[in-house]
């Protein structure tokens, strides 16, 4: 790991650790207010909070392994481990989504006003955690600009979902409390629960889409392969023969290896110039970080 990578990993680890502390506290408090208020939305929120906390624990664990500095042991980094963790989280989200939807539909059929000390505590906590989560979303966006990985994107999605849930919960509990004497206010609670379920659905589907794709240990798509051929066509006069082209998608990254034969009489500097030019052209056209042109 070079200096920049270490700095970036340390920053990510710091964000994950902050999320770990706030997430752990949020799980405990969400459980408390769910137990002390007659709200299906608060239970849905607790499930969502618990899932988010698990995602942060996974992210933190992955970053700790990366910080240990043994990434070179794995040919393609931790990318696939991150993708596998994302897929596991997406599965849990999908299961929770079904549970929340079922409970919310039952509550819509038999509306009950929310009450208890948990409602007021919930309003206050969602206001505070809403602020924290919005700041974490902003921090994650900055990290994504430094270096986008499946892990950091998953973290940003988790914080965004949490912040959205906080705003939703604050609004629904506020409406339920302020208009507690009106029957229509009883519907705000299950509606908020369904909204939380929808945010889980959006998060789960995105996680599934990206992580499943990243997990497939496959060659890059045909359109990108054509761009490699184009680079080889443009440098046609500068090499002797194409021996092999290997490409791979792993953990959201693209790796390209091109094995070329050069004329035996070619000067070393000329060969290196061709290699650098080819690598640069392929890297730019595919927007990927790992391109190797290997003389054989």
């Amino acid at each position, binding site marked *: 790991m070079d200096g920049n990578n270490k700095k970036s990993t340390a920053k990510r680890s710091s964000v994950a650790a902050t999320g770990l502390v706030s997430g752990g506290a949020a799980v405990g408090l969400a459980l408390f207010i769910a137990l002390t208020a007659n709200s299906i939305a608060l239970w849905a929120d607790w499930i969502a909070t618990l899932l988010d906390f698990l995602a942060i624990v996974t992210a933190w664990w992955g970053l700790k392994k990366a910080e240990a500095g043994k990434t070179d042991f794995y040919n393609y980094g931790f990318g696939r481990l991150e993708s596998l963790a994302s897929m596991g989280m997406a599965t849990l989200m999908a299961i929770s989504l079904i549970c929340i939807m079922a409970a919310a539909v039952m509550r819509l059929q038999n509306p009950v006003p929310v009450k208890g000390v948990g409602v007021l505590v919930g309003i206050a906590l969602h206001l505070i955690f809403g602020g924290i989560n919005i700041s974490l979303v902003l921090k994650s966006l900055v990290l994504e600009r430094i270096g986008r990985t499946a892990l950091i994107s998953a973290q940003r999605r988790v914080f965004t979902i949490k912040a959205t849930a906080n705003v939703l919960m604050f609004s629904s509990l506020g409406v339920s409390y302020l208009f507690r004497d009106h029957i229509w206010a009883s519907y705000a609670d299950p509606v908020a629960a369904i909204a939380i379920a929808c945010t889980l659905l959006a998060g789960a589907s995105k996680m599934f889409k990206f992580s499943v794709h990243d997990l497939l240990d496959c060659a890059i798509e*045909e359109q990108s*392969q*054509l*761009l*490699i*051929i*184009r680079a*080889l*066509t*443009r440098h*046609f006069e500068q090499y*002797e*023969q*194409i021996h092999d*082209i290997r490409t791979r998608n792993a953990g959201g990254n693209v790796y390209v290896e091109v094995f070329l034969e050069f004329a035996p009489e070619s000067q070393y500097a000329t060969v290196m110039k061709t290699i650098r030019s080819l690598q640069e052209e392929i890297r730019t056209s595919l927007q990927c970080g790992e391109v190797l042109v290997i003389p054989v």
Partner: protein
Amino acid sequence: MQFDSKRNNGVTIVSVKGRMDAVTTPEIDGKLTGLIDGGERRLVVDLAGLDYISSAGLRSLLATAKRLKAEQGDMVFANLEGHVTEVFKISGFYALFKVYASVDVALGQLGK
């Protein structure tokens, strides 16, 4: 996939029909190599009836062109259609190879 070859005044006309993808390309590559090893140096590749060509197919054609170049040979293309024309444009083949509207035109040019 269908592969045919015939000689015409010192030029070999190769006809490839169907698909030239990762499955069929090794067979085509083997046949093209066989022609070069057999002494053929000037090829007109007739692509009329070629419905699809993948990057694997293009790579094989590039490698064939390299083999021919090493033997002071030449390879041109004729009768490109639809998808194949588009792929040739994207991959820069039009800039590297001569492409003719028909085999007769290609033969006329190679005969000059």
